[in-house]
């Protein structure tokens, strides 16, 4: 392959760059590559790659655990866990904490989980029937939001009916 710049030497350096999701290839000889200031080092903009790649699933993420207001002294009635203790040890005391300390925990969960606040995925086979129903409703609500966002009003109406039917 001929060098794209001098159109004389054989191209030995092949650059692939991804700009705004577009793949761009450049073929140069070693001298021209050096002339262009392209050390082998900076050929592949991996950071760009990863950010385009992850743009779809990522959302801004700050520090792992949010600051807790000093006056937050609420404690779990079954295990006594407080937000202050959680902040220190980064672990909760029991499953109840998620309900009882919800006001303070919710923002932390949202921040750590890319803005998500409700479960999607596997459900234990032995989960009680009413909780399975709840999950169905939660999932339908999510579908409903998507449908409205995509201006698919026909589908949205159907989903709304199904939610009402379940409730």
């Amino acid at each position: 392959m001929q060098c794209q710049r001098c159109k004389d030497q054989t191209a030995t350096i092949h650059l692939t760059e991804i700009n705004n999701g577009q793949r761009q290839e450049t073929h140069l000889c070693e001298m021209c590559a050096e002339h262009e200031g392209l050390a082998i080092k900076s050929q592949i903009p991996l950071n760009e790659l990863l950010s385009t790649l992850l743009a779809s699933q990522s959302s801004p993420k700050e520090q792992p655990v949010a600051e807790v207001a000093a006056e937050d002294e609420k404690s779990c009635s079954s295990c006594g866990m407080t937000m202050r203790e959680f902040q220190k040890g980064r672990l909760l005391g029991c499953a109840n904490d998620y309900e009882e300390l919800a006001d303070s925990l919710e923002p932390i969960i949202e921040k750590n989980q890319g803005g998500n606040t409700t479960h999607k995925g596997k459900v234990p086979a032995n989960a009680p029937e009413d909780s399975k129903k709840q999950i169905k409703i939660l999932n339908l609500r999510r579908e409903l939001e998507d449908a409205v966002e995509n201006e698919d009003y026909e589908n949205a109406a159907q989903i709304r009916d199904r939610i009402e039917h379940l409730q």
Partner: protein
Amino acid sequence: MKLEKISKQISKWFDGRGPHSEIVISSRIRLARNIAGYEFLPRLKPERQAEILEKLKSAILSVNVGEEVFFIDVAASSELEQDLMVERHLISHRHARGKGPRGAVIAGTEAFTAMINEEDHLRLQVFKNGLQLTECLAEINKIDDEIEKQVEYAFSPKYGYFTACPTNLGTGIRVSVMLHLPALKMTGQIEKFFNATSDTDLAVRGLFGEGTEAIGDFFQLSNQITLGVSETEIVEEFTNDIVPRIIDYETLAREELLSSQKAVLDDKIQRAMGLLKSARLISSQEALFLLSNVRLGVNLGRIKDIDISTVNELFMLTQPAHLQINNNKILDSEQRDIVRAEIIRKRLSQK
């Protein structure tokens, strides 16, 4: 004991084979679960912790999780045995040095391990060689379903599986691939890779060595988000999008090194071989660094008389606890450097 038997072999998932094994060493999926009605570990009294250990141990042992399955009482194990399990990725450092009744159920092939009373009551793990996340998910799901028939997991429709730390809440899944990225490292692009992932939902960690410092060009890439994204979605994104792109980039970097800096590359590879074949004292850090270059040499066909599984075996067997258990004695750091050099020298000179 079983540990002495496995300490001389390489784990099945580390045999250097499997899909895309020239770059993806292994795939791992972990599920975090807690038992309903019991406090999480920080609030769990020792008697209740012992109850959980018994309950989960018998539940898991009654399920088919592989061949030659055995249980290890981690709390009663020596530090050396604990370290050996950590070096083999069977248990975490946290589990090794944790508090109170705790244990691990391990399959003889090391393709499955369960940590009981680590950060959560139960952490299931399935390992496979190469890029096989879909297969890992299918397998771990089956095991999880079977265990669930015997114990009730803490679960809510809104939050999913409850976990001690909110960063695991929901699916409780951690999907990881271990990658060997020497060409990206050599061409100075790995830092960008680290920087890029620091503001995304992926975590990159060095595979061997401590903390974030990656030694020997091995990296572990895992998902960070566990809530609001299903297990299948995460696995599919890794399998169809993220990992293939990284494979492409590493492959490209290898090709570029081969076509434009062949002499430099060969020099690195052959020097590494030379040092490993002649050194009389070698630290684990130096060994990792040099073996990584040899591994690249084998994968690129620059070294022809050594099999990739030999290189992997040396990675595994030259770690500190392995050296000591396989020699039946406590060795200080200089003695370890001597033994390590000896093992490597012998293995690489064998024809």
